[in-house]
């Protein structure tokens, strides 16, 4: 499951943001008649088509896997937190219809209606992202039921959906998708531009994608801070693990880097910034921050993993926010220096790494609970034996899917660089 999700989230992130880039390019074409923008639209459209298909099939696998792998969990939880999934299903449905209309609708309907179908693809993908993250947030901040003798009663799915964690997680996740994909796409086109390939096209692609990416990157640290405060309130054990904070205390320090040593309950090689953790968690340098010592050790998440993952995410977030500010500065000056573009080329994978790291923080940080404070992960697992085969089957499947997709996208980009562009798939012409 964790693996399927780790795979799915990358495709989902791309699938829910690329349509916006595509619509932006399409809009520029319709307004200005810019042929480059038309080519961009069609290039991105094919990328969206490929990714949507892969996102759709890997998502289908997930919806089955919930039951295949976590029957104990779903038996109790399905009725409570199913609501966002039912809305997600609706949103996907709209998306699937809209994508069919957009991909094959060239010349078959009014141009602006056609443009709007492309936008609907993006909007419904975005909405489904919000819904599914709300479902995940429910596992962090369970709500909407009373737990009596191992049974859920008084179920209220609306309260479950709008649980205390949905807002910060959704906001943060959607920004993450925009920023990761914006930087990845922008970086690829920056490198192609530097290599002198189709300069007009690549510069425009770079600007469109990076506008989204940079704006999201600048907003992200604020959203992340908001998320951190909510975690401090809802899941103090997770926050303590993120920060390697073993002992409860006031004026708690924030560590830069470092490896928590669980044996001796200290932080090794970290640079402490006194009081900053108290400030980050509670807006007050002297506030008390609960440490891991308040929890029995069998309720600790794997501290090292969570801490390292969190550091990776925040480090990347800081770097990307800085790059985002530079991007707007250079754009106002009207010129992007070559070193800056090369730097962005190096930043291509950063956002994706941060997304994976962020999920490790939320998911591993919630352990040993699958529903925080209610149900332990070990009680939810399927009784079916031989799960290793399941794991390997999907590993092989996904790795080959991922490789094929990357290979296809590469061919796509290369063909678009080539002005004559060897014949590309039918339908869209």
């Amino acid at each position, binding site marked *: 499951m964790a693996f399927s999700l780790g795979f799915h989230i990358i495709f989902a992130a791309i699938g829910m943001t690329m349509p916006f880039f595509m619509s932006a390019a399409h809009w520029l074409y319709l307004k200005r008649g810019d042929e480059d923008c038309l080519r961009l639209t069609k290039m991105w459209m094919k990328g969206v088509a490929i990714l949507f298909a892969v996102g*759709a099939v890997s998502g289908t*696998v997930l919806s089955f896997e919930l039951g295949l792998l976590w029957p104990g969990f779903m038996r109790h939880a399905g009725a409570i937190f199913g609501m966002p999934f039912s809305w*997600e*299903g*609706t949103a996907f449905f709209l998306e699937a219809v809209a994508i069919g209309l957009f991909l094959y609708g060239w010349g078959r309907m009014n141009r602006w209606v056609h443009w709007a179908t492309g936008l609907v693809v993006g909007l419904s993908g975005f909405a489904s992202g919000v819904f599914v993250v709300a479902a995940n947030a429910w596992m962090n901040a369970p709500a909407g039921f009373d737990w009596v003798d191992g049974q859920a009663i008084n179920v209220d799915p609306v309260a479950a959906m709008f649980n205390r964690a949905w807002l910060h997680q959704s906001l943060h996740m959607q920004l993450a998708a925009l920023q990761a994909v914006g930087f990845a796409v922008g970086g690829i086109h920056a490198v192609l531009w530097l290599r002198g390939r189709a300069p007009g096209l690549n510069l425009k692609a770079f600007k469109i994608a990076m506008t989204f990416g940079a704006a999201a990157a600048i907003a992200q640290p604020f959203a992340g801070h908001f998320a951190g405060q909510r975690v401090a309130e809802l899941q103090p054990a997770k926050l303590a693990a993120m920060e390697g904070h073993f002992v409860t205390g006031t004026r708690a320090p924030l560590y830069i880097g470092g490896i928590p040593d669980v044996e001796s309950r200290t932080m090794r090689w970290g640079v402490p910034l006194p009081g900053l953790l108290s400030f980050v968690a509670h807006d007050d340098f002297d506030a008390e921050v609960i440490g891991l010592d308040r929890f029995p050790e069998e309720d600790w998440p794997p501290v090292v993993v969570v801490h390292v993952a969190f550091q990776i995410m925040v480090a990347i977030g800081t770097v990307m926010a800085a790059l985002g500010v530079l991007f707007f500065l250079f754009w106002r000056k009207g010129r992007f220096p070559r070193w800056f573009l090369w730097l962005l080329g190096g930043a291509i994978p950063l956002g994706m790494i941060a997304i994976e790291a962020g999920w490790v923080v939320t998911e591993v940080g919630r352990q040993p609970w699958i529903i925080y404070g209610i149900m332990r992960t070990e009680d939810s697992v399927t009784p079916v034996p031989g799960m290793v085969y399941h794991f390997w089957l999907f590993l092989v499947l996904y790795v080959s899917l991922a490789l094929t997709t990357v290979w296809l996208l590469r061919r796509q980009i290369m063909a678009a660089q080539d002005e004559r562009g060897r014949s590309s798939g*039918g339908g869209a012409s």
Partner: protein
Amino acid sequence: MIDVLIFFIGASLLLYVLLGGSDYGAGIIELLPAGRLREKQKHVINEAMGPVWEANHMWLILIVVILFMGFPVIFTTLMVALHLPMLALLLGIVVRGAAFTFRHYDAIQDAGSQRVYTWLFGLSSLWTAVWLGIIAASLNRGIIDPEAAGIWEAYVAPWWGPYPLAVGVFVACIFVFLAGIYLIAETTDEGLARRFRRVAAVANCLVIASGGLVFAASLGERESLPAAFLESPARWGTVVLATLLFVVLWASVARRRGWLTRVIAGGQVGLILAGWLLLYAPNAVTTAAGPLSFYEQAAPEATLRQLVLALLIGSAFIFPSLWFLLRVFKMGRPER
């Protein structure tokens, strides 16, 4: 509330079989030898399926969502007992969707990779169709046993045997039949249309033959189909009606009524599905300990209310947009 949900499950199932099923059938048709029509056939199938297959696939996801939110006990029982066929199904779904899309959108359409995509697309379509049938057949055999201890009893026996396999073959034949019928009107090429007519005719015979096989194989089951069908006129009536409609269908094919033909074929398959559902309703699954009924295994009322609300509001968006999709792509001129 529960009745509304049962209605949505039934309707989604019907639409999945009629729409998604024909997409699988198209894949299987591409496996059959086509000689020099191969390229043209590929083009027509791409154009026919391309705009709609993802939407068609959503009906399955809708069923899964309704089950796991509205009937979690039924959902988890199924997923545990039928773990292996579900995995096989998923494998097929992933490969099928990926191969179809990749074939269409690969920027460089060289013969080698195209052949691989087509082959994968066809094979996984066949594979998925058969497993769908196996799963459908396993629901109500009364072998699923949540208490079973052995690996064989718990995870293999529920879907093992000639009967599920026969249903799998039957389902694949139905899908090919539907695809053949639908595709006739998608092309203006006389040779290709003739080929689709021939495929549909052969599949028609196979549907009847494999239907007989299903009945025969069911004699070894706990409850045999012939006995069950004869119990009420509504049950055997659907089957007889579906069979009689074949005459009307081919009259309509001969007159080249594109849409009428499609509707009749869809009606036939709908009748077969209804006959099957009537056998078991309102039970979703029959375990060794007895049936699990939709009425008894439903989620709490508050959840059902929200689910129904989501489905109704969703329908208000989905049906108009589906209608628009159909109007744009299926009501106009057929392909070359």
